């Protein structure tokens, strides 16, 4: 049987990522068959290798699940590229790569001798993608922070929560998954340009700017109309009822969204046609918006006696948009996600078999090539010998000189 190739089979990627955005961008390519070498160093392990949760709650660089989530379908090589003996490794990496993905503010890659200027001299066709919080210039170019600060500075935080309270925040580095989608698109477009013209290029991504695209009309509303939009709970100007409503059991909620008067009538019928739902004060959207507090309370009183799953089924059957407010545990039992194999289980060298999230798309023809995340330095031999062409003797030197890092190079923490 001939094996069908993945979409990006044969593409060579070096991933100098750190934390969320750059590694996730590289992971998209790895999932679809690119050979992605994630460069790490024991002298400064990725912060995600030192973050909880750990497998069995035992700290360990190869036990950190967040790192695994951002770095599966890759090879890991542990190299101290600042080491004076690393010159030849740097040169061969720069020659081998078709794409380099970096997650640092300006200056960092220069110190490693692998900035765009240096790499493009050795390899003019390189597609060199750089992502950081503010981008490569401007007053925030050197500002290093986490996804929460990106969410704050780009306006996400202001727009979540209740109008009478402080912002409720996005505690899960929301923007770290915005930037990779733009990054993948830019890198793939640059690769196509390179295929046609033979020319590589440098790509500068600001994570703040990519996030603004998810909120562009909000910015325009201020710039054009002077309106500063803020958080409104779950409300939407052109729908009512539009919110989540409590159901039987602890922390069980159902989301209901009614846009048209027809949908409202269907909801009324599904609720058993109570008298209040027939009142003129709820008959039209403008009336429902005017009496929205009361409307929410009445809908909530109805749902409170029902099972969330039953409400969703009943309303969907009636032609009303409704869905469960699912917890993460629920996601692992969601029949639709199961149908799409959203969670796939791979054998990790240290953590054993555990779940990895798929991306949000499926190709009809080319298979993906997902796998487990690598243990730190698991592919040193393969990367240096098979991919970069170093000999057994070279390898011994690289170990002795400390170019290839090991547990002995770990910092005190």
């Amino acid at each position: 049987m001939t094996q069908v190739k993945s979409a990006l089979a044969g593409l060579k990627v070096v991933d100098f990522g750190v934390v969320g955005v750059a590694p996730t961008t590289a992971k998209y390519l790895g999932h679809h068959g690119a050979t992605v070498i994630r460069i790490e160093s024991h002298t400064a392990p990725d912060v995600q290798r030192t973050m909880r949760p750990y497998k069995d709650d035992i700290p360990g660089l190869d036990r950190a699940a967040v790192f695994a989530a951002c770095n599966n379908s890759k090879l890991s090589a542990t190299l101290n590229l600042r080491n004076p003996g690393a010159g030849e490794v740097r040169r061969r990496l720069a020659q081998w790569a078709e794409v380099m993905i970096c997650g640092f503010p300006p200056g960092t890659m220069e110190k490693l001798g692998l900035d765009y200027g240096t790499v493009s001299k050795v390899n003019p066709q390189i597609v060199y993608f750089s992502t950081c919080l503010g981008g490569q210039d401007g007053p925030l170019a050197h500002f290093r922070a986490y996804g929460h600060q990106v969410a704050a500075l780009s306006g996400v935080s202001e727009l979540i929560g209740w109008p009478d309270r402080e912002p409720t925040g996005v505690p899960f580095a929301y923007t770290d998954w915005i930037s990779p989608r733009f990054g993948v698109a830019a890198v793939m477009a640059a690769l196509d340009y390179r295929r046609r013209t033979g020319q590589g290029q440098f790509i500068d991504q600001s994570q703040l700017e990519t996030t603004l695209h998810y909120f562009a009309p909000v910015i325009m509303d201020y710039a054009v109309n002077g309106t500063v939009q803020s958080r409104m709970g779950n409300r939407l100007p052109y729908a009512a009822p539009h919110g989540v409503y409590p159901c039987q059991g602890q922390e069980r909620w159902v989301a209901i969204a009614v846009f048209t008067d027809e949908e409202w009538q269907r909801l009324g019928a599904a609720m058993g046609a109570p008298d209040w739902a027939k009142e003129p004060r709820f008959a039209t959207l403008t009336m429902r918006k005017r009496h929205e507090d009361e409307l929410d309370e009445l809908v909530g009183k109805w749902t409170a006696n029902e099972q969330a799953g039953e409400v969703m089924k009943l309303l969907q059957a009636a032609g009303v948009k409704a869905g469960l407010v699912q917890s993460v545990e629920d996601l692992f039992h969601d029949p639709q996600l199961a149908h799409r194999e959203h969670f796939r289980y791979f054998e990790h060298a240290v953590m054993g078999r555990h779940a990895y999230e798929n991306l949000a798309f499926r190709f009809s023809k080319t298979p993906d090539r997902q796998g487990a995340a690598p243990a730190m330095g698991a592919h040193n031999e393969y990367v240096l010998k098979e991919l970069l062409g170093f000999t057994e003797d070279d390898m011994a030197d690289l170990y002795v000189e400390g170019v290839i890092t090991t547990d002995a190079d770990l910092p005190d923490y």
Partner: protein
Amino acid sequence: MAWEKGTEGALAPYRVLDLTEGGCALCGKMLADLGADVIKIEVPGGDSGRSTGPFYKNIPDPQKSLFWFAYNGNKRGITLDIAASDGRDIFRRLVKTADFVIESHPPGYLEALDIGYAALEKSNPRVIMVSISPFGQEGPYARLRASDLITMAMSGFMYLHGDPDRPPVWITFPQASIAGGAEGAAAALIAHWHRETSGEGQHIDVSIQESMTNMLFNATVWWDISGRNLVRVGDTWQIGPILVPFGYRCRDGYVSLNLLGGGRPSNVASSAGIVKWMAENGMAPPWLQVFDWVNEFDTTKVTQETVNRIVQAIADFLLTKTKAEVMERALRDNIIIAPVSTAQDIWENPQYRQRHFFVEVEHPELGASLPYCGPFAKMSRTALQMKRRPPLPGEHNLEIYEQELKLTRAELLILKQSQVI
């Protein structure tokens, strides 16, 4: 300087037929920004997204939707009723020269019109079709009715967001369709690489639910690895059993701080930096000035009581500072803190100004220039450009139908009067 001029976009040779609606239109916008010839196909009378606010000068007019403008710039526009048989014929002819077809109709809709992927592939095996839908094209939930609120609920996002004493919340500006649109563009270009190297097109099935689940980032791994089903705790970091707030009130708004300790020098420097700032203002309690961030704030050892004491002292201090003061100090001393920005703060932020991120685009019909978000990436050789303001409904009908497809005026008149175009 606007976006750099005079270069060809990376995707200049390619054509996209864009049937997406709402936030999914970001998919075509990304491809258009990268230089592709994106033809937005609207129903006669205009896309429903044109009724979505906000509106230019708050005038509720389909020609003035800022929402529609934001996600349809750089596209050409034609009107076509693909549900009519004449419309379908024209669509099929357009597909013959298209590289991508992107759409966000309910699953099964295009198949029922015999213009689903299986039908289009026969006339153009190279075509890449991206279908963006709430739950995907197949499966038990594929045919459910959904809006962004529903997919955000089903994705797991809402359960994890909000104050514990109130219902879960979404993000006030709807996000889910936009996320699906961006995912669709990334996927389309991965498939494009394969098509250009093998000649084979394919169908891409994007789930909006999954595109939001991905954005939960580290929440799903807690359940998988530790069996902990996280709950919403407001603007707070759950480090195992320990809760550390991100959000603080300041003099003129709010700020977001990652309070960290343990071995990593940059984290310790950040926390020590804020204490130093407090001390300069006489607001650091003596015990905090000698606090050992390395050993006493290790996430595996610190107690909630210690966290609460520190947080209270910092909260009292930050109340005396403005957002601008916080940003300035964060930059000076590498403190991991930033203001919670409003649209006004963003508009005035020198970072975006110095990078020329916002660009003015002329709308002659409005007699005004409107500010748009600029390039989502700065590409050194194939700079992203804002070449066209968003199209008026049917603005390029003649260009496409008459000049390209060679329809006669008589045919166009028939199509117009039967409301096909």
